[in-house]
């Protein structure tokens, strides 16, 4: 009996079983809404996006200015720590690379902050290099408030709690500061392929 299957390593994103991280199930057409608090309703004329903290100069974009930034379409699988995964989700938005393009910083970490007080922390190297976006469109439509609209972070290679809903900015920091779930015993990094759900996993 053969116990080595050659050629499976490249099929993770092509075939259904291989694209599901350990302990996850395919939610199919559903898109569960998880909320740890009331859904913020920020009008677009009061919305802005900031890059602050350990930066040479704070950056701020109004909604209109944000809309003029270079936009990208993204099709990715997302994985929630509560064990559902959703394949081929379609988003549009601005890459974090664009938002940080001219920023001079010594920071190694970033904290995303949101309306409603939510925060999540990530290594700076995980939101750059084409790995993270601030998205305002889902499946061709403006992102609804229950899914994080007007805009949410999208970091699909980590558990979905890192993709902060209602995001309003990024704080660049020298020290890693645990966010809302990270300070409650969830894994500081949250790689679904290594099943990093809880601290110590």
């Amino acid at each position, binding site marked *: 009996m053969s116990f080595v299957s050659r050629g499976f390593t490249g099929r993770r994103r092509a075939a259904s079983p291989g694209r599901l991280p350990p302990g996850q199930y395919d939610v199919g057409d559903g898109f*569960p*809404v*998880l*909320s*740890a*608090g*009331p859904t913020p309703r920020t009008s677009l004329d009061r919305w802005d996006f900031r890059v602050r903290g350990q930066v040479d100069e704070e950056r701020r974009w109004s909604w209109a200015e944000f809309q003029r930034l270079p936009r990208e379409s993204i099709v990715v699988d997302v994985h929630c*720590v*509560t064990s559902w995964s959703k394949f081929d989700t379609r988003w549009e938005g601005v890459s974090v690379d664009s938002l940080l393009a001219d920023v001079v910083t010594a920071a190694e970490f970033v904290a995303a902050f949101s309306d*409603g*007080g939510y925060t999540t922390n990530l290594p700076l190297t995980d939101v750059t290099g084409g790995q993270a976006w601030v998205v305002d469109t889902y499946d061709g439509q403006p992102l609804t408030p229950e899914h994080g609209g007007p805009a949410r972070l999208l970091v699909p290679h980590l558990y979905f*709690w890192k993709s902060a809903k209602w995001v309003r900015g990024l704080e660049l920091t020298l020290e890693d500061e645990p966010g809302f*779930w990270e*300070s*409650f*015993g*969830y894994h500081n990094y949250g790689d679904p392929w290594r099943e990093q*759900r*809880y601290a110590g*996993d």
Partner: protein
Amino acid sequence: MTDPDDAAQRRLDANAAAGPLAELFTVDLTVAMATCAGCGNTAPLAAHPLYAHAPALVVRCPNCAAVVLRFASGGCRLRLDMTGTRLLTVSLAGAA
């Protein structure tokens, strides 16, 4: 002045707190009064909004919406965060 050796001898480890804490956690907490560490509002825990559709149970202040309590069971552990609770008051049964 306290003799430091005497103080060290009188110090207990936290196992000694398990008995008293068991009294607290066997009562019905829904009748407890919780005071928000953020705004100081006091209300019955049962009157606090609970967000259960999240990775943990998230209880928020009915006045300022700050997180008062988080509780979860997962990864073979129970987790309780009461950073947002300044005071929890439980009336003892029979103490009229």
